[in-house]
């Protein structure tokens, strides 16, 4: 466990020291500023309120969950795997007394930490912006729902990260992984639109599963099914990714 912890701290430190993750977080926060400006514009221009204080957070989430969060998650994962494969810096850690399983897990956990951090920053700042600039319409219950919605968004994003990690262990170049990820994302989004009956199986649809947690009467059956589907994906993708990572020669 101590070894895993060390590996995790290392991965997080690398994320933090690398400017990429920082830029990603700053860009994410810029979304809030832009979003708020748009809302203020819409409000004074069209007379439509746009959003109240808490809905602003949901608006932000609904936008970023399908755009920059998957994008930055992909970039971070690709950097963590393909980037280190290409720069040979994977060897630095691999020749230390840490098993590949722990290293693989630590890398993905660090990605999860990144996603969670981005989500939490978005939550805090969007709530702040919401309360400062939008008419107050919040109840404590609403805020709680929003916190849950943000937290729950970690799961599908993490499954997405696992999928990209698998791709990064199959394909040699980070750029091809990136294009595959983007292409896959668009194709899945399209499929979800046309085959609504099967859309629950697509990870791109599950990105919006936070909606289920907002319902006044929780659709428990659906929540459990979606959860199990995501867990199933996670186990398959993790195992397949690790199998390839373990076999890899450096």
């Amino acid at each position, binding site marked *: 466990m101590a070894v895993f912890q060390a590996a995790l701290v290392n991965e997080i430190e690398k994320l933090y020291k690398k400017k990429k993750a920082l830029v990603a977080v700053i860009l994410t926060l810029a979304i809030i500023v832009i979003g708020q400006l748009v809302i203020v514009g819409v409000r004074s221009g069209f007379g439509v309120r746009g959003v109240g204080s808490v809905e602003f957070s949901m608006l932000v989430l609904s936008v970023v969950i399908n755009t920059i969060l998957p994008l930055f998650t992909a970039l971070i994962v690709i950097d963590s795997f393909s980037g280190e494969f290409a720069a040979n810096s994977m060897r*630095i850690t691999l020749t*230390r007394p840490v098993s590949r399983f722990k290293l693989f897990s630590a890398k993905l956990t660090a990605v999860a930490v990144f996603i969670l951090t981005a989500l939490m920053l978005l939550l805090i700042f969007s709530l702040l912006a919401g309360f400062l600039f939008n008419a107050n319409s919040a109840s404590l219950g609403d805020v709680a729902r929003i916190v849950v919605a943000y937290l729950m968004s970690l799961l599908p994003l993490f499954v997405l990260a696992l999928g990209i990690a698998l791709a990064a262990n199959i394909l040699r170049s980070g750029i091809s992984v990136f294009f595959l990820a983007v292409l896959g994302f668009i194709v899945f989004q399209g499929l979800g639109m046309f085959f609504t009956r099967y859309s629950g199986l697509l990870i791109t649809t599950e990105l919006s599963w936070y909606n289920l947690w907002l319902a006044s009467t929780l659709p428990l059956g659906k929540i459990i099914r979606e959860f199990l589907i995501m867990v199933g994906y996670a186990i398959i993708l993790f195992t397949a990714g690790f199998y390839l990572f373990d076999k890899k020669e450096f």
Partner: protein
Amino acid sequence: MEKVIEITNLTKVYPNGRGIRDINLDIYRGDIFGFLGPNGAGKTTAMKVMTGLIRPGSGDVKIFGYSITAEYEQAMAEVGTIIEIAEYYPYLSAFDNLKQLARYYAKVDYKRIDEVLELTGMLKYKQEKPRKFSLGMKQRLGLAAAILSRPKVIILDEPLNGLDVEGMIDMRNLIKQLAEQDKTTFFISSHLIHDVELTCNRIGVVYDGRLLNVDSTQNILCNYATLENYFVSEVERNGRVPSCSR
């Protein structure tokens, strides 16, 4: 004598036919073992298998009795290594690079990091990022990383690559010092015969993926005028003449 590294029937053949075949070798405590062979003989492949970067095709490597394939963490607990060129995270300072590694060892603290930087003469570049370093500086930092955890075994692949004369002498002295003071065992690969002769006390000759012979430097120099003569005769005895002698 205590067996430190035990290589048994180690085989790893690449699809292009290159690689290593059926290597058996024991390294004992206090050895400064020289793994001598021309470029492409399979030295790096053997060392990558020994450090877990590559899975062996068959056979196994045990370090302090722990199998490198099954009990990797225990096997590598007392090992420091540089394979090919020492690698760094270019966006982390020299100190931070070592800090990353230090986390894997309970007994290594920041003081120890300064200590190894001092030993390798890199202390004054502590806060600089390695992307600006020369190859020699990188190799010194690599050595600092390899000895960071006070390992009982150090595996070095061509450690003199890129070093100037002064660097070579420093490196050799450091190896000898560690071997004498801490009884550190070394496994060093090199294609530089002269250097191996000066540094190592046991020598194994590897040629075309096979280990030809292992003997102590002392014995060899009793029977042959130079290590080079020994190398050539070993290769000839096994039915092959090197295209160019070194």
